[in-house]
């Protein structure tokens, strides 16, 4: 037995290819006991494959996986101390809620009276008392996911693996269950890996977020750090909404990619070369106070979308297309020139 390092899970330089496609490329990450780590990325970024490698549903081709210090990457899923909450719930359709939840305990040969106790307790925890004798077909989507959660929680695994468990639910239910998983984590302190493509989910629940792209982890850090201090352009782009302005600076003159000059004033001037300037649309000021911002751009109002809580003003300056969110109407018509501005902290520049 290895010395106790306080780590529930250690994934070390794990790799998995399918033919010529590298699904997981030298991924390393650790989960401390009680930590909630999210794998966030677009579809096809390798996050689900990483999770399935940890659960034992796919085989790694190189690297190692340890749970509580013990190497388990050659073990079949039933010998690994993990429990997965699947996207579809994957409940046993011909078993009742109570039988579903008891299954893992029965497989672990836990005595009958203890099974009954633990099942009752966990159903209480996920607020499903009274549903013991229902079949999965009689439950709503949210209830099914609660059963799936209870079924995994009850075996007290070293690591809980969440495989986009909320993505099949509608928005209000998603928010509700998200808060509930967060509450359960605070109460029970389990260690977890949570796969999602929904960044607000990742931000809201995680101790740390790993942003994945093309089989690699681009950045792994606390949610605030990932948001405010992205390691690279991909992370900035993927987290939060942003507009991109591709610019070319030649002998101090800023122009769009086609060489038309753009009336942009940046607090910190750009050296000659090609740049991509990103701004957060909800941080862009439009109208009156915009001119006082350290960074400004004069653009033509193209069209306006009403998004409910804000208006989204689509603007064009040469070949640049950006948009700005503003709660009220502005006194400008389509085709008029508008000045927008933003703070330097709301902008990222990549070459």
């Amino acid at each position, binding site marked *: 037995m290895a010395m106790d390092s306080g780590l529930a899970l250690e994934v070390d330089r794990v790799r998995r290819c399918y033919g010529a496609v590298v699904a997981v490329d030298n991924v390393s990450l650790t989960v401390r006991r009680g930590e909630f780590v999210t794998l966030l990325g677009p579809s096809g970024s390798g996050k689900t494959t990483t999770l399935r490698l940890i659960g034992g*549903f796919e085989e790694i081709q190189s690297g190692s996986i340890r749970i509580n210090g013990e190497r388990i990457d050659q073990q079949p*899923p*039933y010998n690994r101390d993990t429990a997965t909450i699947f996207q579809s719930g994957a409940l046993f359709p011909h078993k009742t809620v109570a039988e579903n939840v008891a299954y893992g305990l029965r497989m672990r040969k836990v005595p009958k009276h203890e099974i009954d106790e633990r099942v009752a307790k966990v159903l209480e925890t996920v607020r499903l008392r009274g549903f013991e004798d229902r079949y999965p*077909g009689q439950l709503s989507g949210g209830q099914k996911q609660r059963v799936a959660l209870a079924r*995994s929680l009850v075996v007290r695994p070293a690591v809980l693996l969440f495989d986009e468990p909320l993505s099949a639910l509608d928005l209000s239910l998603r928010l509700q269950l998200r808060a509930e998983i967060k509450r359960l984590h605070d109460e029970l302190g389990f260690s977890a890996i949570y796969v999602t493509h929904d960044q607000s989910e990742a931000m809201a629940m995680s101790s740390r977020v790993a942003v994945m792209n093309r089989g690699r982890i681009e950045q792994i850090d606390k949610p605030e750090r990932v948001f405010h201090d992205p390691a690279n352009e991909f992370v900035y782009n993927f987290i939060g909404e942003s507009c991109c302005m591709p610019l070319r600076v030649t002998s101090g003159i800023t122009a769009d990619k086609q060489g038309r000059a753009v009336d942009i004033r940046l607090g910190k001037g750009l050296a000659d070369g090609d740049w991509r300037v990103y701004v957060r649309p909800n941080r862009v000021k439009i109208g009156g106070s915009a001119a006082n911002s350290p960074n400004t751009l004069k653009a033509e109002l193209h069209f306006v979308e009403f998004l409910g809580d804000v208006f989204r003003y689509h603007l064009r300056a040469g070949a640049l297309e950006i948009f700005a969110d503003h709660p009220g109407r502005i006194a400008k018509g389509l085709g008029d020139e508008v000045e927008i501005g933003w703070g330097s902290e709301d902008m990222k520049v990549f070459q």
Partner: protein
Amino acid sequence: MSEINLARQATLQQRLEPRVLRVLSWAFTGFLVLYILIPVLITLVMSFNNAAMIRFPITDWSVRWYADFFGSTQWMDALINSIVIALGTTAISTTAGILAAWAFERYQIPFRTFWYMLIMMPLFMPGVVLGLGVAIAFGGVQLGSYSFYGSRELVMIAHSLWAMPLVFMLMEATFRTVDYRVVEASYDLGGRPIGSFFEIVVPMVSTGIISSALFAFVISLNEFVMALFLTDRDTQTLPVLMWLSLRSAGTPRLAVASVILALTVFVCMSVIMLWYARQLRKVAR
């Protein structure tokens, strides 16, 4: 004037057309039902004939030939042979067919299409060919004092040549509907492969298993040619005995045997239908 007449004719034709179609479809449905039912019904009626020969008109009704059938050791033995062979066929073909279908659905198999065609081939082979082949292959084979030829076991194996591909085909389609994540969930929670197969997979495909087992049973019960080739006086099945006695004397006992065979098939089919209906309701719930 003629224009008005034309218009009237058109509307008359337009009004008639759907009716004609409806009448025709009902007529043909009725024809089909009669076509299917008449032989069965005539046999059923004939089985209650008191006369010594199968002949119309029936002058005297009785259940005499039913008593005769159930009182005859020869006929009862044939019925028992049929049922035992059908049960054996069901056991062999469902076990083999289910496992083969699972293998095809779950594992990487080289030359998959080739093996698939090979497994399905007997289903399209004439019974004479299969029966003769099995008879030639096992004709002289003996295991100690036990001779394969003429045994019930050999007929079970021969009938499984037909029943197994059918089970395989049905179960392959059924397994394709299984959400494999559920099986993964079982492994994930500590369930071992064989235990998970029986506790998680089998109940999910119970409809497929029950119906393919009943199909296998019915196929074996109905089969005549292979059974004729492979049985002797002690192991002959009901269809074989019926054929043999038809050549000697056409008594209403034959009709009784037909009714009993048909009734067994009817019961099996009803069970399949009921089971399907129940499963459909379960899914809809």
